[in-house]
């Protein structure tokens, strides 16, 4: 049996903007298992980064977590921790790597001092940190001599992102969240970072949540994928099921919309329309005005619930049975 590491239940996150309420994440359930690599895929504004931030209780004002539980390791509800407990929890239990590493690192502080800051903020951890840092640098293929005594601007974008990964892993957290970790990087560096993450997963058994808009990135490393649309998960399944046996019209649409160096380019089509305004969502299924299979039921009845249609394959679509023959 797979053991649950992080259990998100009924999570709703809202932002208040010009007295309008924007529901970025709406009543979401998601379990992350031990040693899981789950990809959260969606377009801009679907709520994927908000989801990541809420796992660390980092939602910036004017956003707030309206409802829900985020249970870590079948014990702590992260949303109930006070500021001091949270500070200890972050980095030790869950850490995060952001899209732009150059914004993560302090530009006027040398790398080794930044690493020391993390360590000294967690005095309860006192194993041989120094050796671990060296080991981590080797794992991400950075020369510690070259990197430790310099300022961030003296490193390339890919090197900075690798330093950010080392920082995130320094206290050996069981869960790592990566928010578009390679989006700002060149394709050669990206491949290297993805290989590094695969290696880390294999050797350290770290669970990962990988947030991205790019299906080909998750194709490289994820084991399961959640497809998000307008604050909701619309499909959740193993990587093979998502790529070779997807059931939701949005997932199918995304797969047919991505130009690639392989496969048929003649059949590529974009999904018509654009994502809905999160402050005035359509009635029924949120994808209904862009869906090629839309019927009255999709506009009139309740939102479709995420339901298990095959073992470990969940879909939120009223018409999944008909449209999949």
């Amino acid at each position, binding site marked *: 049996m797979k053991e649950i590491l992080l259990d998100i239940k009924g999570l709703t996150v809202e932002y208040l903007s010009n007295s309008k309420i924007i529901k970025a994440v709406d009543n979401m359930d998601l379990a992350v298992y031990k040693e899981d690599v789950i990809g959260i895929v969606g377009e801009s504004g679907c709520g994927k980064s908000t989801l990541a931030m809420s796992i660390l209780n980092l939602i910036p004002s004017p956003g707030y977590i309206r409802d829900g539980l985020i249970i870590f390791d079948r014990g702590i509800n992260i949303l109930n921790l006070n500021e001091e407990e949270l500070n200890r929890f972050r980095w030790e239990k869950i850490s995060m790597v952001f899209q732009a590493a150059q914004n993560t690192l302090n530009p006027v502080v040398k790398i080794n001092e930044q690493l020391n800051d993390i360590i000294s903020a967690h005095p309860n951890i006192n194993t041989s940190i120094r050796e671990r840092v060296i080991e981590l640098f080797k794992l991400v293929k950075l020369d510690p001599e070259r990197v430790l005594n310099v300022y961030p601007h003296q490193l390339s974008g890919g090197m900075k992102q690798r330093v950010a990964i080392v920082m995130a892993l320094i206290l050996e957290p069981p869960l790592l969240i990566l928010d578009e970790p390679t989006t700002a990087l*060149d394709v*050669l560096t990206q491949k290297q970072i993805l290989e590094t993450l695969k290696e880390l997963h294999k050797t350290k058994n770290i669970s990962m949540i990988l947030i991205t808009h790019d299906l080909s990135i998750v194709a490289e490393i994820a084991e399961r994928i959640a497809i998000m649309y307008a604050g909701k998960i619309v499909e959740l399944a193993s990587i093979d099921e998502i790529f070779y046996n997807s059931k939701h019209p949005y997932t199918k649409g995304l797969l047919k919309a991505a130009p690639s160096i392989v496969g048929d380019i003649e059949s590529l089509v*974009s999904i018509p329309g*654009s*994502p809905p305004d999160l402050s005035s969502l359509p009635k029924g299924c949120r994808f209904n005005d862009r869906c090629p299979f839309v019927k009255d039921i999709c506009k009139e009845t309740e939102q479709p619930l995420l339901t298990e249609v095959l073992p470990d394959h969940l879909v939120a679509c009223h018409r999944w049975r008909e449209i999949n023959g």
Partner: protein
Amino acid sequence: MDNNILMRIDNLNKDFSSRESILGKEIQIHAVSNLSFDIYEGEVLAIVGESGCGKTTLGKILVELLEPTRGDIYYRGKKLREMSKKEFRTYRREVQIVHQDPYAALNPVKTVYQTLSSVIIANGIARRSNEVREKIDELLTIVGLTPPGEFINKYPHQLSGGQRQRIVIARAIAPNPKLIVADEAVSMIDVSLRIGILNLLLKLKEELNIAYFFITHDFGVARFFAKNNRVGVMYLGKIVEFGSTEEVIRDPLHPYTKALLSAVPVPDPNLTRSRKLLPLKSLDIPNPANIPSGCKFSDRCPYSMDRCYRERPELIQVDKNRLVSCFLHIKGCL
């Protein structure tokens, strides 16, 4: 054949000077070096390269947003530097640019009407207000923003990213251009909408005979947009490989092209996990102040030979449609 060359780029160079520190000595960075190629009427020429390869600098030079350090650009056979005022105005009207970021490219306090009307009036496309309005309606219809009345009085913040890029495209086609330099035109557009924007640009090419100089970092996008056309791969200011898009992607000859293509993830888990990165000696682009004196790729290339460190290879035709700048592929060099 010569008569359908729209733009000729002849031995183009652009250097930037920079200092490593405030008191350090000045160094020259060759962002574009000795580039020569032609752009034909109505063709798509895609340029693929990583950040820092000089592709954006090159695009800016083609529309005269930057002046080259050395070398010349000919538009319709005329040297840009020797054009009369009238000829230069024609060039300015017929060569347009679409930038990467549709948020930054539009003035946030101008409505769609104001943005488009100023281009229409400045280029003498229409003058009377009912003619201007007619032209704007026509442009919005062409770029798929219908009915035009729904968009004409909107400000950029009231439009989605995809709609904004369509306004940017409408503005670019307003003066009836013959060449559009598109710099990462879909990189900031959501995946589900990208093909729509690319198809719009391709439709304009067919209907209005517009040529594209299409700059991208994404081989997948280049493959779609420049199908049945040409692609050039750029590395540190040089084009290292030129050829038909399909052939270059199917059978890359230059080691750098091979490396790039081997690193591109593909949306197919079984396939992408079996692809191996070409083992480069170094993953990082060399410091621009410290470029190898022989072949610029020699310090990273897994195949480099003695000669590669000593001499810089020229871009040489190796096949009917293929040019490569690598000693491995130049006959009689091995």
